[in-house]
């Protein structure tokens, strides 16, 4: 291992006042904490069990109601009420029904800046790595510990360095890069490790695309999906935050557990087949498989660039007979921008059901549970058996463009057919 330090070693070290190295266990100060309605109620219970009183993270913690929003059940409404009460009692920001998926809300509100250390009681907290933050998912009791004491223990991860070069062909997107990486690295290939992803193909992506790639880091088992900050990062943060920040770059002689490089110049649209995210193939291999429902949205692909890519294909066309399409913008901000651009009109006209910003059908608790034996094509990040609420359904994961093309045809379709 080199004498230099990786992004993870630098950020965790700076928050623990230590020369943190991969494998060390450190107790680090947190910059921001987040929990959503699937994890916050248990965090509240843990917090109360700790009998600690005030929270250390006042003004630096948010709750988001997104997984079951609006509430589909009386019992869930009670849990939501607990979150509202706790947030007002202890001074947490409460993002209620309609604000959007927790991760997009955190980004929209500028709670994540380069170099910061963020925990979220949700596994896709790793998404913020695209903003050069060490951000990782934890459980509810970890979150309660963070809220109460302002710090948490971390094992400093080893890092896999990934360099991506080549220019994407039209019809191929960040999601296809991400699925290709998951297929290659596999579902547990980066367990306990951090990814540092960069190179010309990543620099060429807008932030929406970078966030999609970091979002899928956890599908390889990774603890964080880090990228370096650049002008695009700064432009993204402009107007969102007034917090001073210092981007963190790895040392040239940093020690990596592994280095990988990819050329995406001839990458094709990719699809993850049921029931694991690393079961990946080029779209051609599954073309023609019938599709009953499409989902465009989630913390993976519910951002403006995603909605634009889908709308470009759907504009002026109609869903195939017997096919449903659910569209859920990732946040209120994304919804407003999509309204102004006429994208929501396009979705509505083509026959889609546009949902309230939030997780929508992603996790199978409300809004759009597929039927027995049905195939779903989704822009989400997980296709586990039962994920969308029915263990008898089959979930394929793909880019927004591939989902859009597929719902027009009623079968899995290469989106390049609809371009140019």
């Amino acid at each position, binding site marked *: 291992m080199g004498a230099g330090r990786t992004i993870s070693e630098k950020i965790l070290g700076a928050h623990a006042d230590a020369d943190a190295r991969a494998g060390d*266990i*450190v*107790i680090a100060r947190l910059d921001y904490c987040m929990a959503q*309605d*699937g*994890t916050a*109620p*248990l965090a509240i*219970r*843990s917090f109360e*069990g*700790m*009998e*600690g009183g005030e929270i250390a993270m006042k003004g630096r913690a948010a709750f988001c109601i997104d*997984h*079951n929003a609006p509430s589909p*059940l009386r*019992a*869930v409404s009670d*849990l939501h009420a607990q979150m509202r009460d706790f947030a007002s009692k202890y001074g947490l920001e409460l993002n209620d029904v309609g604000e959007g998926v927790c991760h997009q809300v955190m980004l929209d509100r500028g709670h994540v800046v380069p170099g910061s250390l963020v925990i979220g*009681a*949700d*596994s896709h907290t790793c998404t913020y790595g695209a903003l050069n933050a060490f951000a990782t*998912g*934890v*459980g*509810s*009791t*970890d979150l*309660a*510990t963070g809220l*109460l*004491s302002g*710090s*948490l*223990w971390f*094992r400093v991860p080893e890092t896999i360095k990934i360099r991506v070069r080549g220019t994407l062909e039209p019809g191929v997107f960040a999601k296809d890069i991400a699925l290709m990486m998951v297929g290659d690295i596999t*579902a*547990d290939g980066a*367990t*306990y490790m951090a990814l540092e992803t960069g190179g010309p193909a990543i620099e060429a992506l807008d932030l929406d695309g970078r966030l999609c790639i970091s979002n899928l880091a956890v599908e390889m*088992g990774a*603890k964080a999906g880090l990228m370096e900050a650049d002008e695009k990062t700064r432009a993204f943060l402009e107007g969102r935050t007034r917090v001073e920040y210092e981007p963190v770059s790895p040392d040239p002689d940093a020690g990596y557990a592994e280095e990988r490089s990819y050329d995406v110049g001839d990458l094709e649209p990719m699809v993850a087949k049921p029931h*694991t995210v690393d079961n990946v193939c080029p779209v051609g291999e599954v073309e023609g498989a019938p599709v009953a429902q499409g989902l465009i949205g989630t913390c993976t692909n519910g951002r403006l660039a995603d909605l634009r890519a889908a709308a470009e294909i759907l504009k002026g066309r109609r869903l195939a007979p017997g096919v449903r399409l659910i569209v859920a913008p990732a946040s209120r901000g994304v919804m407003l921008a999509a309204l102004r651009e006429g994208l929501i009109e396009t979705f509505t006209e083509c026959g889609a059901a546009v949902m309230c910003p939030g997780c929508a059908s992603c*996790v*199978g*608790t409300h809004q759009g549970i597929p039927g027995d034996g049905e195939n779903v094509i989704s822009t989400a990040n*997980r296709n*586990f*058996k*039962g*994920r969308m*609420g029915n*263990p008898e359904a089959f979930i394929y994961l793909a880019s927004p463009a591939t989902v859009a093309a597929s719902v027009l045809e009623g079968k899995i379709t290469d989106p390049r057919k609809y371009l140019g």
Partner: protein
Amino acid sequence: MVMKGRAHRFGDDINTDYIISGRYKFKTLDMAELSCHVMEDLDPGFADRVNEGDFLVAGKNFGCGSSREQAPLALKHAGVAAVLAQSFARIYFRNSINNGLPALVCDTSRIVDGDELEIDLQTGLISNASTGEEIRAHPLPPVMLKILSEGGLVEYMRKHGALTV
């Protein structure tokens, strides 16, 4: 502390949706109810067959997927005393220790369904009474042993107020 129990064998990549489906976990914090549904999508009879003190034995990447802490909690409430696997997903591993459910990384390849196991948490020694074989688990870091010995992170924080290495 030595624990004795029977092995329930599962494969690789058992995700938290399989351990406890999102269908149930969003509805309630009642662990007695959730524990009736553990492993249901993979093995519908599991919750009825498992006895207090039994062990769940799996392959690699146990607990991958969402960060739901209900996964180790529901297992614990169903009577599972420890989980043994070739490897664990990171968040699950933290959650398991934080809730006082030991998670041991060891070579599980020769443990089969129904084996009678004896586990010494302090030494990490696992004896398989059915085959006579002994297996060594990776030792847990001190911070985790401390959390486990307090019965979980909630108890630990109630006593100490903050974490120390």
